[in-house]
């Protein structure tokens, strides 16, 4: 009798576990079911609003990180300003679980870092992209990130070399720097996605549909 009870209990437990496992698997595979683009939420802000207007035709620019060395030696400050990277920053009206960041750029961004902020405003780097060659960068985050702020720090673009040729002159063993050495990224859209949740009826956009819509938009231009 006792053995029968144990078997029955094990069977029930297995069923529960299988059910839970299936649900987890379903959630896992729900990577195909993306939420709507959180950057288009009412109240979302960006350091260039053109990157969150939902229109691939409007191209915004990343903004240079201002040097914080205002009291330092003027030469050091100027050099730091010239070498400063640029950033695209998006602030959401409320924290969201972000799993995917998509950046559409007009000039190819070869290297960038993705940072997220915690509730105290501290930034943490969560992803590095190196040697990208596409205008569309689709970044999947390896863990769920609940945040209201995402930024992309641009390390290298395809336009950097031309800018350096223009602003850096070499001769007689000296290097004369007369301007910025890192080009701004030209970003058409900065998109943030999570997975569809039960509280988002009708917000689900499958990845395939999402890509098709983008393709339609590009073809219609």
């Amino acid at each position: 009798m006792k053995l029968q009870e144990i078997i029955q209990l094990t069977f029930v437990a297995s069923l529960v576990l299988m059910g839970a496992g299936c649900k987890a698997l379903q959630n896992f595979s729900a990577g195909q079911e993306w939420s709507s683009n959180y950057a288009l939420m009412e109240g979302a802000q960006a350091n260039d609003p053109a990157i969150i207007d939902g229109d691939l035709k409007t191209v915004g620019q990343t903004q240079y990180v201002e040097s914080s060395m205002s009291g330092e030696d003027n030469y050091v400050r100027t050099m730091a300003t010239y070498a400063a990277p640029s950033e695209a920053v998006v602030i959401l009206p409320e924290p969201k679980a972000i799993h995917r960041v998509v950046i559409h750029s007009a000039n190819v961004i070869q290297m960038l870092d993705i940072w997220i902020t915690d509730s105290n405003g501290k930034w943490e780097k969560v992803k590095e992209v190196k040697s990208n060659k596409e205008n569309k960068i689709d970044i999947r985050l390896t863990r769920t990130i609940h945040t209201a702020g995402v930024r992309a720090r641009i390390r290298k673009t395809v336009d950097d070399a031309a800018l350096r040729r223009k602003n850096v002159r070499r001769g007689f063993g000296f290097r004369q720097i007369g301007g910025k050495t890192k080009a701004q990224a030209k970003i058409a859209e900065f998109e943030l996605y999570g997975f569809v949740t039960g509280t988002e009826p009708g917000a689900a956009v499958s990845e395939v549909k999402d890509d098709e819509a983008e393709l339609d938009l590009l073809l219609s231009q």
Partner: protein
Amino acid sequence: MKLRDPWKTIIGSSWLFVIFFFTISCTQLNEVHRRRTLEARNNLKKQYVTMARSDPGILDSSSSLKLESKHYVLIFSEDIQKLKDYDSADERRGVGHGSLVYMESLYNFVHDIFGFEPSNQDVYGFEPNQKIRIVLHDFYNGSKHQAVTQTQSRTEYQNGEFIKKITGIQMDFPIEMYNQRPVKAHELAHAFTNIYLLPTWFAEGIAVLVEVEYAEGNEHGKVDLHDDLKLDLDGVNAAQSWRGHGSATLGPLTHWCYNYSYSIVSELKQRYGSQFYPNFFRLIEEDRLHQKLPGAMKDSFLVYYLSQSAGEDLIPFFQDLKFKVSKLSRNDILVMIQQMNLTITQ
């Protein structure tokens, strides 16, 4: 049965308590969450200048040499069309659209700071369909480092007095300057305030205030109003005779003039609060001072209106900084303007 009834009551009441406390805790947790979210957002807003998207309603010409939005006309000058990034209509369209979305958001941003806008006909005498012209250049006036905002006006003689009408506001940017947010904010501040014919030092001080304290630029900084004071040969504060970055005089002192002027403007804002300047402009507007002035505003007029906005006499503050100003009443100002206009008429 008699024994079980009290237990039922106790258990029932306990459940009610549990549900009640659960509800209260949920509400409190929600409130804490809401407050934390707000705090986090404010922290982020302190770190970055971010803006909400606007509805620009952009109209585009076929060559994309001229684009229009709600408040602006964006024009690509001839020399910029020779640059690699602007030599095709597609490139200009992409940059132009994005730029106008940005500028429309910046317009709302500066509007929130001052409380008035150029498209308000009562304030400006700016015709309803007129827009701010933004002209992008490779070089402007032979330079890649000088952005200029000019306001054109026409003076009409009506009912025995001169009245100004704004016929255009134009912002000229070398593209290198246009790509810098603080510079755009600085020039847009001029586009908003030029109509008031403010003394140069004050107009630049206000523009640098917007550039540094709202758009978080770091080109300029504060100086000590007493320790860093510089006098001209008449013993008057050197900022008072400054005629702007284009003037030949005070060339070496230009950077100091920007910083010193900004320091005064910022000091007053710190003392009298964020509504100090919106009130100041409202007071000028009420008297229509800018429409009657035949030329740039005298510093004594300016100090009168600043004092009105502050609610206390600021003459001692400015005299302490070696400004040559005198105490005037509103009537004195109006009589002086009438006399100036009479002289011009004669």
